[in-house]
């Protein structure tokens, strides 16, 4: 099996990295995260949530902010 065919050990992190690099070409300058409970978290599990959040549809907030 070639290196390219091997399954990535960090697919979510790599997915974010690819998105990040693409967005930089569209004017992205800065990225910040607000963590919740990171006990037991890994970089890979964190970026799995980041990717979910990026792809989630906006929903209407039930109250004014």
């Amino acid at each position, binding site marked *: 099996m070639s290196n390219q065919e091997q399954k990535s050990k960090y697919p979510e992190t790599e997915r974010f990295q690819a998105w990040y690099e693409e967005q930089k070409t569209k004017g992205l*300058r800065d990225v*910040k995260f607000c963590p919740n409970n990171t006990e037991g978290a890994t*970089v890979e599990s*964190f*970026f799995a949530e980041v990717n979910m959040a990026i792809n989630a549809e906006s*929903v209407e*907030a039930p109250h004014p902010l």
Partner: protein
Amino acid sequence: MSHIRPVDVCLIVKDLFKDINDQQIPVSVENLVGVISHRLSVNSEAPYRIEIKGKNWPANQLAGMMFRYDDRAEISYSVSFNRCWRRFIICKELTHLAIDTEERHFTKNPISLVQELINKVPAACDDDVHSEYLAYIGAAEMLLPWSLRNKMQEMMDQKKSDLEIANEFRAPEKVVNLVLRSESYRRLSEEANSASDSSSSPGI
């Protein structure tokens, strides 16, 4: 090391409130968005847009995030949090927009940032993680601004609990507790607010 100190963050937020005429309880996050957007639009042809998006994701590890583009910023928060925490998350990210104003303040490596956020052991003098710490202070100052601390004191005098005060200010109880009960936070606020109004702050 970082471009600003905690006391500077308090001053920057205090300065934002100068542009808000109607200082109500709870503080209007929309007003803060408007002021920051307006200030980021100075010297730009088009208004700087700040989009606030409530989204549905599990949020076990990630509560919110902010992406700053050349002409707009996008702040996302998880709708799994209550209104008080949503407001806090948004204000934390708004603080980044207000205090991280130059390229050198921006996150250089998101993956390293996440590693350090998770491990809670930032590399020595790491600006990215220090900026996170400052953003928490900014969010507290936005939801519980110095100009309304006398109202908080009145509520305390009326024997209202931190939870009751938090409900009125629509701020997390933990944050109310920090602002009202922490000696170090009180000293920080007092230092910031005894500083001359004419002192220049490094924010927007």
